[in-house]
């Protein structure tokens, strides 16, 4: 009997703890400089007189351009999320419904031929780095596909190993890949194809780094779908690609929405890649936010406005998608 009020009280307390920073950011953004510097104040109209000056400053651009990074962040994160969820879900579906048998040795052959081929074409035969890379890849891919068909010795990897390989890409510290990616991008840029500080470059890297998470999440969602529904369609001569798009995806809607939300949040908030791979034109919101307190000193009212710019869109998206997800859950499978 006593437990319900207790639990309710604890929940309420925790809600206050989590909501307070948001409230604090919101009221700070409405404060004039004097109200910020004169000790803590909490209630607008009582503690201090609210002003929209910080918002006016932000939109007038005296604290740096807010609009462009906001648009950049939106375009990049929406495009990369869409691509990552599409390709990641396809990969997850393949891992759930088909059996893969990859010989470890054929993977090693791929690595050896690719690296050796690059050295050979670049150092010995005098091709440029990009050409050598392309040629080495063109040789190594068929070589390893062929090798996989031969009865080679050594372990044979299955679907779970492939999944682990996907997830393992997220296990090492991102800074390791970030530097490698920077070098790769600048190398490709030297060949005349601009990837650094470009929309395409950012979308490509975020898509690539989100796919492992999407595969991992979507695999469980897809594995929970009853296979008979797809088999019924197969017997009815529905092509696999239409089964995927017209039957599997609608059934996996709650999973797709949850995964999209997680991916979108990851890309929207991502800092390290954006810091290394963009300079001016395609800078994203997190880079702008991080620059705020050094730009003109600790102007907390202005920093609060910037922080709200970063938080608000994700909150709106989260609420919309959560609503969609609930309606999707009621659709569900049929038992």
């Amino acid at each position: 009997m006593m437990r319900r009020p207790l639990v309710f009280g604890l929940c309420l307390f925790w809600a206050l703890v989590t909501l307070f920073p948001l409230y604090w950011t919101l009221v700070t953004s409405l404060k004039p400089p004097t109200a910020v510097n004169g000790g803590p104040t909490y209630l607008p109209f009582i503690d201090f007189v609210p002003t929209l000056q910080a918002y006016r400053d932000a939109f007038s651009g005296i604290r740096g351009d807010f609009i462009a990074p906001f648009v950049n962040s939106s375009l990049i994160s929406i495009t990369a999320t869409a691509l990552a969820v599409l390709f990641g879900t396809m990969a997850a579906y393949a891992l759930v419904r088909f059996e893969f048998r990859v010989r470890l040795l054929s993977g090693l052959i791929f690595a050896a031929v690719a690296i050796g081929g690059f050295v050979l074409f670049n150092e010995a035969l005098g091709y440029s780095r990009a050409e050598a890379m392309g040629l080495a890849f063109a040789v190594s891919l068929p070589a390893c596909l062929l090798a996989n068909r031969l009865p080679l010795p050594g372990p044979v990897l299955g679907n779970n190993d492939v999944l682990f390989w996907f997830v393992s890409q997220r296990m090492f510290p991102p800074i390791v890949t970030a530097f490698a990616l920077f070098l790769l991008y600048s190398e490709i840029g030297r060949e005349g194809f601009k990837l650094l500080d470009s929309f395409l470059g950012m979308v490509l890297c975020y898509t690539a780094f989100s796919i492992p998470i999407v595969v991992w999440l979507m695999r469980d969602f897809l594995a929970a779908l009853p296979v008979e529904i797809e088999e019924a369609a197969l017997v009815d001569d529905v092509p696999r690609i239409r089964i995927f798009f017209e039957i599997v995806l609608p059934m996996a809607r709650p999973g797709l929405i949850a995964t999209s939300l997680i991916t979108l949040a990851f890309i929207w908030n991502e800092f390290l890649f954006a810091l290394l791979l963009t300079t001016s034109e395609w800078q994203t919101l997190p880079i702008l936010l991080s620059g705020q307190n050094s730009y003109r000193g600790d102007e907390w009212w202005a920093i609060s406005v910037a922080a709200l710019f970063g938080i608000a869109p994700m909150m709106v998206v989260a609420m919309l998608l959560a609503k969609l997800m609930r309606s999707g859950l009621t659709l569900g499978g049929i038992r």
Partner: protein
Amino acid sequence: MADVRLQGVSKAFDEVTVIPALDLEIADTEFVVLVGPSGCGKTTTLRMIAGLEAASGGTITIGARDVTELRPGLRNCAMVFQNYALYPHMTVADNIGYGMKVRRMPKAEIEARIAEAARILGLEPYLQRRPKQLSGGQRQRVAIGRAIVRQPDVFLFDEPLSNLDAKLRIEMRTEIKSLHRRLNSTMVYVTHDQVEAMTMADRVVVMNEGRIEQAADPITLYERPANTFVAAFIGAPSMNFVPAQVTAKGEGLALRLEDGSELAIPPERWERYGLYKDRAVTFGIRPEHNAGGDTGAAVIRMTARTIEPLGPHTLIIGEAAGRGYTAQVDSHFPAAPDEMVPISLDMSKMHIFDPETGSCI
């Protein structure tokens, strides 16, 4: 419409052979039921006909076409699944019409076929509903409708009634049977329920451990089971098996049970069983070929353990000659648990089986 032929079809998962080479011919317009305990390979066989499972060996022919290597969609089969397998996000009409839409059939034709299927199955009021808003029986009708509009060479049913409650199952049983008569098509039906198999099939194929134990029409299966497996599987309650010895009695033969009781074998069987004189056999008799009392020609005494009154008759479950034994007697036959009860056997309905191989003698 077409016949289906399986020649030496086998299935192995990795190293485990679940179906050794299997031969089965299903005639055009025949209703064949594959029945057996779970894990006997009946569903795997059906899935190999559908193409959802690749055969490890042998050939599968539908009509004049060798379909062994064909993908499921090209075999022109329609399949109905145990859990209905409806597309949850589509209406009933879309569920039935989806395959035709994918195959780019003319819209008018699609609508005509949906309407026809809905009429046959009584689904007209539900065409715009989602599967979730339907009862189990209605869902299975939608699944059948989806199969009908395909106008397939062969209908495949994979335990379609197992998820329905008992009353609905009996209704759907007759419905599928009359559908077969109406469509006059080849149907292969998998079930683990021997009553379903007996009531629906033109021919029942009893499977066990990947092998066909016997394939025959229901009455033959019941009256002349090929072996103890079929004898035990078909009929409820199950046939009684008692070890016995064939002995000479006068100029004829008799069975001597382990408790010493002797049962005269009817003269018309003397010739058939002559070879087995003085040999151990398994004597089989169905519960319904027993009667209470000692008025018959062959009488045994059984110890009653449980009395199950079913209304039209009563089952006495207990032991006879040291083995579990069930007898079906008149509802008013006096019997009480833990009493010795005399039971008369109708020896014209007896079976004897080779105790080594289990096959019928």
